[in-house]
């Protein structure tokens, strides 16, 4: 039984790491803009498909696929912010960009449906079926890669936010956009940067999720609801909270599957969400709004 408990712990951390990567992009955008991006799921899907096609084109070079997915996500984020979200934000109505993200989501899903079809793709990387067995435990090289890539990405993002000028500027805008502007920071530039980073993260998480997901044009939507829950449980835009909440949700899924029933996963996760909102409305890490991101 100890082996099974340990195995489910590994499974939970792998899934949780993926959730964290998806949720971090949402957290960044929420932290800076106090806006929910419903199209984030589709950036994840696009990243997964970009990685799929590049990996196949380059005869199994998965790392090239991940890199391209990162770039595709970033470019898409920049493009959509420049052409849709930024002009709508300028009108001063917070609802317009929110609704626009829903429109972009539907548009991207249907465009992918037309171009790629509805039949699930089998995204096998050179690592997804390479199983390592050790002391009764098993894990694929792909799952180890997910944990390593997630850890590195989180580390880089953390260092960027804490130690670089741009990262500090981003945090300043999240604390007080107007004052940051008075201090010489261009808020529009920082918001653009936030969209690019968040979307690049979504693209990369799609590349890592692709071999795990049932890869169809709707793939991202299956994880995005949990990612939203993680953002809320973690503390509405708090990066550290998002990481902890993502891992907790991953572990809850694994242990619910083992000891209860996989059909109860959503009930348990969303009960935790409601409990968090009721008992700790600020999320797991209750920071002041100005300290978010």
């Amino acid at each position: 039984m100890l082996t099974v408990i340990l195995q489910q712990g590994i499974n939970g951390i792998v899934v949780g790491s993926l959730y964290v990567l998806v949720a971090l992009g949402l957290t960044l955008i929420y932290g800076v803009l106090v806006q929910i991006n419903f199209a984030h799921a589709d950036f994840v899907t696009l990243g997964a498909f970009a990685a799929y096609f590049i990996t196949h084109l380059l005869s199994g070079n998965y790392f090239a696929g991940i890199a391209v997915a990162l770039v595709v996500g970033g470019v898409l984020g920049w493009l959509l912010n420049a052409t849709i979200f930024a002009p709508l934000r300028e009108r001063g109505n917070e609802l317009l960009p929110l609704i626009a993200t829903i429109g972009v989501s539907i548009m991207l899903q249907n465009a992918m449906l037309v171009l790629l079809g509805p039949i699930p793709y089998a995204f096998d990387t050179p690592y997804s079926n390479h199983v390592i067995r050790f002391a009764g435990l098993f894990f694929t090289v792909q799952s180890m890669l997910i944990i390593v890539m997630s850890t590195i990405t989180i580390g880089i993002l953390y260092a960027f936010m804490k130690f670089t000028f741009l990262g500090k500027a981003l945090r300043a805008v999240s604390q007080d956009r107007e004052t940051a502007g008075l201090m010489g920071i261009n808020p529009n530039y920082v918001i653009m940067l936030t969209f690019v980073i968040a979307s690049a993260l979504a693209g990369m998480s799609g590349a890592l999720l692709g071999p795990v997901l049932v890869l169809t044009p709707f793939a991202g939507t299956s994880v995005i609801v949990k990612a939203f829950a993680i953002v809320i449980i973690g503390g509405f835009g708090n990066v550290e909270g998002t990481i902890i909440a993502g891992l907790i949700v991953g572990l809850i899924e694994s242990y619910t599957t083992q000891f209860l029933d996989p059909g109860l996963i959503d009930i348990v996760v969303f009960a935790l969400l409601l409990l968090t909102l009721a008992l700790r409305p600020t999320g797991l890490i209750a920071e002041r709004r100005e300290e978010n991101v």
Partner: protein
Amino acid sequence: MMKRSFRAFLMPTALMAGLLAVSTTTGFAADKVIKIGGLFPISGPGSYFGVQDKQGVELAVEQLNKSGVNGYKFEVQFEDSACSPLPATQAAKRLVEQFKPDVAIGEECSDATLAIMPVMAQAQIPLLNAGSSSIKVTEPGNPWTFRIMPNEVMQGIDIATNAYKRLNARTAVVLHENTNAGIGNAKVFAETFTKLGGKILADIGFGRDVNDFTSIATRVAGIGKVDVIPTYTLEGQGLKITQALAQAGVVKGGGGHSIQLGTIWLPFGFEKKAGKAALGYVRIVQFDPTDQREVVRNFIKAFKAKYNQDPTHINAHAYDQVMLIADVVRRGGKDAKSIRDGLAATKDFSGVTGSVAFDKTNQNTKMDTVHYMETMPDLSWKALKWN
């Protein structure tokens, strides 16, 4: 300037959305036309059904309209019923109110079919179903609904009996999606297998939003020796389950002992996608491409000529639906009522998936539409000829 560029961006978007939202029609102007309404999932996780259904339907209509049947030609309108009750109801109402079909075909997913049935019954339009397995579709019986495919009870009893008697299985873990069809199929298997003397070690249900099946595979691996794992799910999740069970060393494809048993729900090409994990997978399909009957050989030839690909069982049963309607028209069917009566009187129709004869509940009683296949090491199929 920005306004203009935003509009320029929205225009193609709106056009694309419009193209997707508007249903497609395959038809022509003619005096004597049988109007067929196609209710299939074109969007969402079950949309792979709809794409393949449409191919089968369009091939059949194209062949029939070359010379017509009894002076009638066929016109089809497709609506997206999305494999889900609410959109299926809306699509069915739209079809009835706007297209006014003489007969409807679809859906694939049981939950959606069950939602469509009352709409069709109220409009007194016969519904011919080929892909839903829930017993509720034909029990206790609906005078306007007919089903070609063996229902979950017929399939479940057959699979459980073959697992016990031919595979000598004594223990099983049942995996299923939490839908009417998933739960129903799993229940029938479990009841039959237990009655025969087998033991169900676990019954694991899951939602359609589950992506990673490693935790479920871990749980199955922790149960001990399992002889068979009947699995009731759509293609995408089925693929992930098979790979996860192999990675956990549970099934033959991963060096384990268990044999995975699959359903009619999975399309051709599944094994190619699952890779070596699918080795030893025994599953039923609704269409045997090695069948030497003339109707099957002609269908395969025509399908390859039109689409440059091999037909799947979904293509095949969609084709059969239209061909069965044509057979009824040949026997005098000309409107909803006479087509319903003609379908009910069907006793000896021979289609590409097998033969059709409806009982009092309008369920096809023939089991030759079920073909057992085993996945070989080169991922090809071996027809087990159990039926």
